[in-house]
């Protein structure tokens, strides 16, 4: 699509054209559910259940947690098979700071790259400079400062960094509440207070000023980590998440197909308790969860990255 291409990258109120199509794809995923899948068969189930995208992985987070070892970008063969099987967007994860893995995934032409704390970080100091890529990135954040640092690096979508593979929604709730309340606070501040807030949050002043005006992140704000039931999906949606990632929650449950569909339904009808009730009606046993408070700091995934 090079013919008649609009020139003037960086010009215009909506930013460069590349940035617009990156955030544009994130916009298209709003209201939906993005599901972790480890093979083509699961991807097909997810698509049929109404997932708006899938995340191609070698192991779901709960297995990564159990088995330990170094978790890396998934095998190309697995990602390719999934890309060939479904028509919805396919995302894949890279280790924090591992820009060479990101280069590989861009060459593979995945639709979205997740620079994810679920994998073992490759760089404990630096995240990837995501503006260099044409493929959009999603990054995790526990609070507004972290979200804005990732956006400044070029993330086109933010998700909470709820404790992946725990089946426990508490961390995702904590992060979503933190992000939303910190944004609200900015809207009440005077111009001369915003610089101090930028310093406190460790975030660029320009983005802080923008949020003070709009009360919203400049990119879609999704939720991920520990979401295991339709009511979990409805909860984070009501707290401000514009879409939901479900990891281990679907394919580690006793009834993946029914559960996938039920979570999709609840994510859309999150404001209608009757619809969420209906979504729960048919469900079997959810994945077994972990109590995050019993976990040691070294076992927490959300503390990876900054």
């Amino acid at each position, binding site marked *: 699509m090079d013919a008649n291409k609009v020139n003037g990258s960086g010009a215009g109120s909506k930013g460069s054209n590349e940035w617009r199509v990156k955030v544009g794809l994130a916009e298209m995923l*709003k209201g939906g559910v993005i599901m972790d899948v480890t093979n083509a068969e699961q991807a097909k189930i997810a698509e049929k259940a109404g997932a708006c995208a899938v995340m191609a992985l070698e192991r779901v987070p709960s297995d990564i947690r159990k088995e330990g070892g170094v978790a890396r970008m998934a095998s190309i063969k697995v990602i390719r098979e999934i890309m060939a099987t479904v028509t919805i967007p396919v995302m894949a994860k890279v280790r924090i700071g591992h820009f060479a893995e990101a280069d590989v995934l861009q060459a593979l032409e995945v639709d979205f790259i997740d620079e994810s704390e679920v994998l073992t970080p490759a760089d404990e100091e630096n995240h990837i400079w995501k503006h260099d890529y044409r493929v959009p990135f999603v990054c995790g954040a526990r609070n507004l400062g972290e979200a804005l640092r990732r956006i400044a690096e070029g993330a086109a979508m933010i998700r909470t960094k709820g404790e992946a593979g725990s089946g426990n929604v508490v961390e995702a709730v904590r992060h979503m509440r933190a992000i939303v309340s910190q944004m609200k606070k900015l809207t009440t501040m005077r111009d001369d207070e915003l610089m101090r807030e930028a310093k406190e949050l460790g975030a660029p002043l320009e983005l802080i000023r923008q949020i003070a005006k709009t009360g919203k992140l400049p990119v879609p704000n999704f939720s991920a980590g520990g979401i295991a039931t339709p009511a979990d999906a409805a909860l984070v949606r009501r707290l401000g998440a514009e879409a939901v990632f479900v990891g281990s929650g679907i394919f580690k449950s006793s009834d993946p197909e029914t559960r996938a569909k039920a979570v999709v339904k609840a994510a859309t009808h999150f404001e209608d308790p009757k619809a969420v009730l209906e979504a729960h009606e048919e469900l079997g046993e959810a994945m077994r969860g972990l109590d995050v408070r019993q976990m040691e700091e070294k076992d927490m995934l959300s503390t990876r990255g900054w």
Partner: protein
Amino acid sequence: MSDRWRRRTCCRRADGKRFSSTFSLGVRGAACGALEGRCEVRGVRIGILAVQGDFEAHAAMLARLGAETVEVRTPAQLQGCDGLILPGGESTTQLQFLQEEGLADAIGKFAKQGGAIFGTCAGAILLAAEVRNPRQDSLKLLDMTVLRNAYGRQIASDVVNGPTKLKKQPLEMVFIRGPIIERAGPDLKVLAEYAGKPALVQRDNIMAATFHPELTDDTTVHEHFLRLVAVGTNHAAGSAIS
């Protein structure tokens, strides 16, 4: 009813100021090239299908034009709408909600009763008579064949310009994993093209775009849709009086 009719209406411009204008519209949504300025008809209510996709971007665009919008997730929420927008998103996801929750029937009925409909990207796919790459079911409200993800994956998504009948200047088009209208039936009017393929089509008061006008600052396409809504609303009012 005469071929052309005149109507006086109150409009709100993008800058929020209200002004009155008198303009004429051709019946059945004939191109309104003679119209100038940013016109919106007060009192129309536009439903936006909000099961999944970029429904908020459409709502923001219509709010700029001063139209009242309502998110539609159930057949009941379609009641009282004069127009309906089928936003971008994933057509497989949207189709599932349409088929399983009675929305497909409700939208079919809405179209039959003369409601105006505008689908962008996934919405255009839902409106097509035939969907390929791969084959999938649809509402079949426009006689066209649409190929899904026809430009390739996200890396092929781009912002381009294409000629349009709605204004002199080319139209800015944001394609995101966009479809291509491979065949447009004889009763479809092509209002804009990109690379020799129809990108914006219309039959009566139903419109489809393979790109995302809601992701630009240009209100041209949505203004055109609001005019189609106004035509439909007036027909309904006219027939009730006569």
